[in-house]
């Protein structure tokens, strides 16, 4: 086994036992990146030399606590002081923040090593990473397929073993869907569990930073570092952060798991349904109580999401006006034209589409019919979950309705593309934590199972996911990238 193949917890172990140094780890990953990155194209910016320098310092300091000496990648809309943060947009092609995101500061504090910034759909608007202004990322399992999105670069980088973990963001499924497509574990925490400060927002009421890793234990390790209160984000809640790692071993005995019938309709592939049902059987064998339930408003989550998220985005992306940072059109001779031409030129098609949609949904005469209506539907969706969680601990569903599709297949058809998020979006609408873990393969492509819990019950999700992982082999499957 190569060093780059090791998960976080084993690298940590080897560092602590003095078997290897951090510099050796970074060198191994640098080597791996040089072999596969040309095919996968997961990174927008790479800084192996910077990581190497940091690694040398960590080795010198010793004491490999936390994630010290472990390399990682960051979705390129998480701000890094001194390192380009592009959001995969021409708008921010040369933007170098003068601040770190809160989560980046946390990772620096634990002395993890930033290897680079991963690709995404421009401003996180997409489900395939084809909407990056720079290049599409490819699925390591099948290079002609998408890795999912918008955290596609992060999922692909972990899947291709270019870094042992990445941070991504999830607004409507942007961590879980690419995790499912790339056969890795992806955790979307409770809304309010992780600070959003320094993370370029898509839809502020839905966005959440989370982890992509090879397995549940790694996820728990990284999550322990980034979770917790930030007084600089008023939507980041001051609640205790439990010890996620030591809770892993508690198993699923007696845990009540619901599976909503609507999530096994909604145009979900038969293979996926079968794989998840088989996984549910497994959980039952391990002692969980598994029952069918209904989340009746599920099918309305996606249309409501496609009003709320663009509405928020239309305001969030308004600040890109060319004045203080980012691209500026220099032809315009007055400021109104400068704004419009800057934005018209530097935003990509999907971003413009969503800004237009959101602006329309908020505009005079349409607010009630679109935006307000969607807020009301959001209430219905959230109450559906409340009702189920009154009697159950977890909800299990497929993560995506289909396996990863061929690059370019849905470019002309946004709605079919949007449908990819149909099983993940309701979770964001309700602000719940959820995780996608590998649960099978179909025609050589990975499939994901989604585990959802009550607010702030990430520990229970990981406990169940870990039990499943310990008793199955899906998580150890990896793509065979020819080198």
């Amino acid at each position, binding site marked *: 086994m190569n060093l780059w193949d090791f998960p976080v917890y084993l690298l940590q172990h080897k560092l602590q036992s003095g078997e290897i140094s951090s510099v050796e780890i970074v060198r191994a990953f640098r080597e791996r990146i040089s072999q596969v990155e040309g095919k996968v194209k997961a990174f927008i910016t790479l800084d192996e030399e910077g990581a190497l320098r940091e690694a040398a310092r960590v080795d010198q300091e010793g004491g490999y606590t936390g994630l010290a000496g472990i390399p990682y990648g960051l979705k390129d809309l998480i701000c890094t002081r001194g390192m380009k943060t592009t959001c995969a947009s021409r708008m921010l092609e040369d*933007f*170098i923040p*003068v601040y770190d995101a809160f989560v980046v500061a946390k990772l620096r504090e634990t002395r993890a090593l930033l290897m680079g910034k991963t690709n995404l759909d421009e401003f996180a608007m997409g489900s395939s990473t084809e909407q990056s202004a720079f290049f599409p990322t490819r699925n390591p399992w099948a290079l002609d397929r998408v890795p999912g999105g918008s955290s596609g670069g992060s999922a692909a980088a972990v899947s291709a073993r270019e870094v042992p973990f990445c941070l991504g963001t999830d607004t409507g499924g942007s961590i879980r869907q690419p995790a499912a497509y790339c056969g890795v574990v992806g955790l979307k925490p409770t*809304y*309010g569990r992780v600070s959003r400060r320094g993370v370029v927002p898509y839809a502020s*009421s839905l966005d959440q930073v989370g982890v992509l890793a090879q397995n549940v234990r790694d996820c728990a390790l990284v999550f322990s570092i980034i979770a917790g209160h930030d*007084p600089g984000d*008023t*939507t980041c*809640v001051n609640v205790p952060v439990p010890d996620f790692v030591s809770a892993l071993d508690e198993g699923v005995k007696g845990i009540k798991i619901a599976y909503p019938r609507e999530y096994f309709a909604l145009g979900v592939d038969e293979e996926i349904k079968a794989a998840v049902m088989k996984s549910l059987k497994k959980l039952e064998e391990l002692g969980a109580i598994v029952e069918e339930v209904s989340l009746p408003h599920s*099918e*309305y989550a996606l*249309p*409501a999401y*496609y*009003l709320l998220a663009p509405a928020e985005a*239309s305001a969030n992306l*308004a600040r890109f*006006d060319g*004045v*203080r*940072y*980012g691209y*500026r059109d220099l032809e*315009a*001779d*007055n*400021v*109104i034209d*400068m*704004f*419009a*031409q800057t*934005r*018209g*030129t530097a*935003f990509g*098609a999907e971003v*413009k*589409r969503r*800004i*237009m*949609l959101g*602006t*329309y949904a908020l*505009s005079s005469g349409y607010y009630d019919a*679109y935006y*307000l*209506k*969607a*807020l*009301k*539907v*959001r*209430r*219905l969706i*959230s109450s559906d979950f409340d009702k189920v969680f009154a009697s159950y601990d977890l909800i299990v569903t497929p993560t995506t309705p289909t396996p990863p599709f061929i690059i370019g297949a849905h470019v002309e058809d*946004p*709605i079919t593309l949007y449908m990819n998020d149909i099983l993940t979006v309701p979770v964001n609408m309700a*602000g719940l934590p959820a995780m996608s873990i590998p649960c099978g393969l179909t025609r050589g492509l990975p499939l994901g199972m989604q585990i959802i819990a009550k607010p702030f019950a990430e520990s229970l999700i990981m406990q169940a996911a870990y039990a499943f992982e310990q008793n199955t082999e899906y998580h150890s499957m990896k793509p065979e990238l020819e080198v």
Partner: protein
Amino acid sequence: MVLNIKEVEHVAGLARLTLKPEEKKEMVARLSSILNYVDKLNELDTDKVEPLTHILPVNNVFREDKTEPGMDRELLMSSTDMKEDGQYKVPKIM
């Protein structure tokens, strides 16, 4: 089509987006199809439903009224070349 080209132009104006003629046409088609899709929400009677604006049951998060000096101006303004005398420079307003 739910939207016509005039409405697209109006919305693009509000959003300060210059669109090329072919982009406008595409916008008419795509936005219309999305708006048709979201019309599905009208199947639901939501008259008595309270809109959900904040998902967290949290309120009153404040900071104390304490000051910190502003960021070093050179650093703050290092993200643009369009500046003069410590101020951002923009084309004329009218």
